[in-house]
């Protein structure tokens, strides 16, 4: 029988790792992630999880040890947050190039300085281009289930994957969690079969020097695997329903059927967005929600299909790429680019450094979306003393552009 427990997102992630029967856990403490590895430490010490657990000397080493463990044929897991994920960056690339299906949970927190442990997705989105699959959990249940879902796909395509979870509003919030039966998880997630093993009888060399004649092809295989992962992720999400009773998909829609306005969100703040959308519907506004569950591989077809022909799209970003706009807004704009009936995309930046994104905040944003005539790259919501709008106007100086003409 599946167990029903009241647990935090962090503890759910640890249960996800345990249900996935991870074999090596290597981690370093960082708020607000630490509870994940503390629970895994307890579970390994008590023997409930027969895994090797080590606290290493930094996040860089934590990922390096996961790389080693995975290369030696073990299912490896770690969890980190903010600065820790940034410190792992070099090793994240390694896991991709070495084709190791490691899974990590990242509890997203703001980057320093100034020091902040509060919710902000800039940390995980800064790792967008390393080649890890990325899922964004919204609930405690998903914090557990996405780890299992991710291992399933990662081990099919031999690419690593990370599950994003928002600091405190998910990591430290308790909700009822269904802990699945272990044998049913086993049926869904078969044991890890490494592509290559470290076998003394059949010695190999890893991490060799490749010249210009091989590197591109090695990378091409990574690109290919990531393309394949898109379909597998959707399939594995469907199969999750048959095996474990919950259906997951790379994109979720809510009240989208006749929606003229669509608001897009990812992660735990989506729950408040959903409530605001429901409230707006009751007030007669034709609005729906598009929740992006998977950022990599990016679900182009689904996003294009769900957004085609809408009147306006608002993208809510709890992150920002300075000099451009919110990262999800960039992704949505790029997905819609060239589509004949593409809606205008209004980028809204909010909740930076853990500032609350309340239902009311989203409601105000929806009102602004209706009123505003022209889309903007980034409209800031909730900066002290400022109304919703673009960056404060300053004297516009024409930027000289160096152009060479073709005669």
């Amino acid at each position: 029988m599946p167990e029903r427990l009241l647990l935090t997102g962090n503890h759910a992630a640890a249960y996800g790792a345990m249900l996935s029967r991870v074999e090596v856990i290597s981690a370093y403490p960082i708020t607000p992630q630490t509870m994940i590895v503390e629970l895994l430490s307890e579970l390994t010490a008590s023997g409930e999880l027969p895994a090797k657990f080590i606290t290493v000397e930094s996040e860089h080493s934590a990922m390096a040890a996961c790389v080693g463990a995975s290369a030696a044929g073990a299912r490896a897991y770690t969890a980190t947050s903010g600065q820790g994920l940034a410190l792992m960056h070099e090793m994240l690339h390694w896991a991709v190039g070495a084709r190791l299906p490691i899974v990590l949970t990242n509890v997203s927190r703001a980057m320093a300085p100034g020091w902040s442990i509060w919710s902000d997705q800039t940390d995980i989105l800064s790792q967008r281009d390393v080649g890890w699959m990325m899922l964004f959990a919204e609930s405690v249940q998903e914090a557990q289930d996405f780890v299992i879902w991710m291992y399933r796909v990662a081990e099919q395509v031999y690419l690593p994957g990370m599950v994003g979870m928002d600091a405190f509003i998910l990591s430290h919030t308790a909700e009822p969690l269904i802990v699945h039966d272990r044998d049913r998880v086993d049926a869904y997630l078969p044991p890890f079969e490494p592509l290559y093993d470290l076998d003394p009888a059949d010695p190999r060399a890893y991490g060799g020097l490749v010249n210009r004649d091989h590197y591109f092809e090695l990378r091409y295989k990574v690109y290919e695997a990531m393309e394949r992962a898109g379909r597998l992720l959707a399939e594995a999400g469907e199969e999750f329903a048959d095996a474990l009773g919950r259906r997951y998909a790379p994109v979720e829609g809510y009240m989208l059927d006749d929606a003229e306005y669509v608001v897009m969100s990812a992660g735990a703040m989506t729950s408040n967005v959903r409530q605001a959308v429901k409230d707006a519907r009751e007030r007669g506004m034709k609005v729906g929600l598009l929740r992006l569950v998977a950022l990599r591989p990016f679900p182009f077809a689904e996003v294009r299909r769900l957004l085609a022909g809408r009147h306006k799209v608002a993208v809510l970003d709890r992150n920002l790429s300075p000099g451009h706009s919110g990262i999800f807004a960039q992704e949505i704009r790029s997905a819609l680019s060239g589509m004949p009936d593409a809606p205008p995309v209004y980028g809204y930046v909010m909740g930076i450094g853990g500032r609350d994104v309340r239902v009311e905040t989203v409601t105000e944003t929806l009102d602004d979306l209706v009123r505003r005539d022209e889309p903007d790259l980034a409209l800031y919501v909730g900066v002290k003393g400022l109304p919703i709008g673009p960056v404060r106007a300053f004297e516009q100086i024409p930027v000289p552009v160096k152009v060479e003409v073709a005669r």
Partner: protein
Amino acid sequence: MSNATVQISITLRDYLRADRLPTTWCAGCGLGIIMNAIVQAVAYRRLDMDKVSMVSGIGCTGRMSGYVDCNTVHTTHGRAPAFATGIKLARPEMTVITVMGDGDAMSIGGNHLVHAMRRNIGMVAIVVNNNVYGLTGGQSSPTTPVGGVSTTTTAGSFERPMDLEALARTAGAPFFARATVNHTASLTMSIEKALTVDGFALVEVISNCHVIYGRMNGMPEASDMIAAMDGDTWRTNPALLKRADQSIRVTAAGVETAQELRRREGVSQDERSGRGVIWTSSGSIDLSHRYQREMTARQHDEVAT
């Protein structure tokens, strides 16, 4: 005595950012004592706070740079010595003090500490050793003693703790001192002496994390842990005793534990204890009692003048 008290209160107001107080540290934490000792040492050296830079890493100790009123930087986990190296290169006339915890200095920042020592960059590095990652809630650190219970070693740690003194010797730091928060006079004197070193000076301070580490290891009160930082009561502190017995020395002859060392060379428990050891490139200097006497004399001088 009343004069001495007045003098210290003036010192604190002049040297701390009073608007940032109270600190976030738990009641009874040794960090307040250590911050006080640093401020006193700076005051005794008559240093201008505008020419002092305090660089901290991450952890409970990392918060100190928020409270001391000089040029402060609260840097990333483990990198305080690297930031401090940059500051010293740009402004060599500045007195640079880095404050780090044991996890900060010896794990994630171990290589920075080693190379700052190797390069002999002019700074006073204060490593607050409380055997645990406190701020994140009590995970085992590089100095958690064998058998020490933490949230990531619930059945007791089985890794050998780092020996900072041995590391300092190996990396070539010209000055090393170890003091405890139970011996405040010698602590202040150690820091004051470190401030006179023209080069890298390392001060390890044995501190207490009774709220997290102590509670998990049978010492839930600050007084339990602080009182145990003494040669006489050493044996009553299982954490310190384990730490003393299990720390290792790597010598030409191989690896030996402190226990073996004591047995072989008859080194007393006191010499291994928090009371400590001070050595410089010109040789070892002993010990804390003399400094306590000097300190008392010094305080009387200050009051008199």
